[in-house]
């Protein structure tokens, strides 16, 4: 135990002396949190749409005002002489609405009115949301214009649970923390380990009285401390930036974070032990750790959308389990009964990475 602590102290001293690494460790996670938290938002507001009002009556203007007052759209008038799809072609607008002549007249007579809507579908997801939103606006407009209406046979009341305001930052926030904690602690671990291999200092370790697992645990402990500091910083930042609050029992989150940080550092050490070249180790962490955590963890789009052939890979991505458990802790608050398996999986993956780094280190010593 004394030797583990000594090893950890040596590592921490090394980090403190390397300014770039220190900045990388503490500042970058915050920058990433900030960037991803603000840049990734799928619920969009202020989408520009052009409107051609061929009717020019109070009712048609009221209809257009309904779009204007919705947060989703920004309405720009469009000359009647111009073709509306021109606005979509050069990207000045994402949608176009054409209100036909006799709009008011037909509505008052009780005739069905056909309005034409064009949507730029090159961004499929936004187009899908726009389609729904434009229909909703038309519908509520009609409801306000018509004083009485008979109800439909079945009326579905929608209740949004856990995130009633549909704030996507609350969805992205916990996941970004998970992503940052996967990337930076493992990067530091990989750098430290591959440096030993690159500079052959691993031979000195071999010659000293410290054993392989003590050496590894010492390294992991050091970066675990750094990672915990990152986690606390990220939590404080997301408290203010995204308004994240714990939704229930904090113990699953605490235990899960400890396991996850051990797994993340262990992953980095494993990569570093396997690749005794710092530049190559960085690249591998970037591709294996970051990209896999970014794409295959349910970060934005659910894991169930990934094609079956690729989906099994996501079972090996630690970030997937941590994102799940932190979303539960911050939004759902179901606690242990719902997410115990994430802890089990994290523990399994963490031990696997530790075992692999132990083996990698043995090989490194033989080769050095």
């Amino acid at each position: 135990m004394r030797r583990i602590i000594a090893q950890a102290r040596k590592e921490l001293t090394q980090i403190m002396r390397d300014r770039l690494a220190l900045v990388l460790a503490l500042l970058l996670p915050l920058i990433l949190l900030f960037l991803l938290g603000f840049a990734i938002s799928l619920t969009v507001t202020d989408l520009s749409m052009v409107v051609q009002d061929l009717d020019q009556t109070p009712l048609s203007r009221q209809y257009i005002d309904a779009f204007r007052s919705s947060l989703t759209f920004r309405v720009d008038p469009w000359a009647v002489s111009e073709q509306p799809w021109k606005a979509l072609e050069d990207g000045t607008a994402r949608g176009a609405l054409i209100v036909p002549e006799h709009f008011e007249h037909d509505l008052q007579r009780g005739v069905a009115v056909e309005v034409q809507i064009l949507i730029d579908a090159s961004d499929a997801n936004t187009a899908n949301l726009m389609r729904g939103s434009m229909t909703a606006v038309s519908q509520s407009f009609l409801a306000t214009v018509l004083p009485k209406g008979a109800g439909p046979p079945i009326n579905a009341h929608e209740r949004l649970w856990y995130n009633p305001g549909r704030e996507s930052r609350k969805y992205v926030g916990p996941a970004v923390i998970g992503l940052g904690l996967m990337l930076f602690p493992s990067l530091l671990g990989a750098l430290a380990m591959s440096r030993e291999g690159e500079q052959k200092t691993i031979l000195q370790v071999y010659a000293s009285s410290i054993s392989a697992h003590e050496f590894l645990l010492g390294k992991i402990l050091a970066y675990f401390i750094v990672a915990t500091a990152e986690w606390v910083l990220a939590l404080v930042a997301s408290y203010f930036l995204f308004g994240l609050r714990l939704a229930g029992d904090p113990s699953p989150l605490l235990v899960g974070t400890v396991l996850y940080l051990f797994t993340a550092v262990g992953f980095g050490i494993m990569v570093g032990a396997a690749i005794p070249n710092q530049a190559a180790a960085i690249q591998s962490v970037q591709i294996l750790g970051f990209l896999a955590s970014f794409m295959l963890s349910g970060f934005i789009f659910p894991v169930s959308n990934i094609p079956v052939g690729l989906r099994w890979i996501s079972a090996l991505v630690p970030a997937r389990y941590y994102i799940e458990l932190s979303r539960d802790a911050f939004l759902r608050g179901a606690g242990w009964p719902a997410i115990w398996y994430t802890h089990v999986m994290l523990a399994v993956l963490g031990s696997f990475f530790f075992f692999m780094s132990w083996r990698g280190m043995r090989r490194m010593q033989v080769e050095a």
Partner: protein
Amino acid sequence: MKDVLERAMGLRLWPLMAKELRQIRRNRRLVVSLILPPTVIIIIFGFALNPEVTGLRLGVVDMSRSTESRELVSAFGESRAFEVRGYYSSSDELGEGLSKGNLDIGLVIPRDFARKQERRQTADVQVLLDAVNTNTAQIAGGYAALIVRSLNEKIVKAPTPTTAAQPPSGQASLAAAPGHPGARAEPPNLPDGSMQITPDSQGAAASQQTAGSSGPPPAPAAGLVTQPPIAMNVNGLQMSRASIITRIALLFNPGLQNSWFIITGTLGILLVLNGSLVSAASMIKEKETGTIDQLLMTPATATEITVAKMAPLFVLLLGQIAVALVVGFLVFALPVRGSLVLFVFSGALCVLAGIGIGTTVATFTRSQQQAQLMAFFINPPISMLSGATYPIEGMPKWLQPVTLVNPVRHFSIIARGVMLKGVGIDVLYPHLLVLIGIAAVLIAISSWRFRKQLG
């Protein structure tokens, strides 16, 4: 005189380029790393970043236990979006399933569901959505509303015998009962992209108008009595049968293929990022091994050295555009509706911008390791603040102008213009000009830094 000078410079440039080419050829890892990761990334991004909602786990509380309620549940089950996972005896149990994450959506059918339908009253059902994932919840809500909507139409079109037996006046008073405003929580989407909105779906006049679209204008009250379902409007205003049919045309991508959007954006990110990484690496390699001093001792000028270094890399990186195009065609059936020349040209500008970033980074760092760590500061903003994978409108207002200096933003607009919209340079020239400007500025900065460092 100038001509002669230029020719001399050209002569010296070629051997230097030959040296670089030979170095690249020997470095097989570089060639592989330029082709393999982009292919994998484009394929995985194209498949994985897919917002389409299918197979949502649905839990049902059916307190009505009637034919009508079973019909509603099976309507949900038949759609591709939902998958009935189980029945619960109370909404508390259902809520527990949702909170444990066993379910994504819950449907609660009240005890009086069938009875209310029989009496032609509005029967309320509850749809509970796990809104942790805002995007999925929003889309799922739309689908649920669509299912209810089309079931409503079916019920209205096929009036039950009891309805026919009931006197029209009785129905009218029921239907006009307050508390059932026409507005519903979510818009119903019809699969073909067109939808119809009516204040009262029970009004068969509306449905008929949807079907016919050019039916005769409805007659006043006398005509209504003859058609039982319309009888509900007896005491309503004539206007209450009005409806707005929104004919929605999804331009450029009617199948809503998100992969087309992702590929055109991701390619820009890859070109800039790879350009910067590869050029930084090859610059630093000369620095690390000290061979840059040997090169400087030769009569070649700093400009010649840089140009000779970057030209082969430039050509190599252009190969990525070809790789991305091939993957796009073969895997995702990406269309090309405009000029490929414009597309490749703007891609080349992206590569130049990337090379500019890379060589600038190289002048600030001493080792490969440092350069790669620097990349962590540069890459996330370039890829995130570009509108390449997420709409720029979703970002905070004050952050949006920052994206204007991002080459990836302009490239993805051009790429989508060419590939999906089929527009030409007459529409896209502002973005092309900005892209040229960005590339020129970045190259100028990098050569200034490079010369300063060598001087």
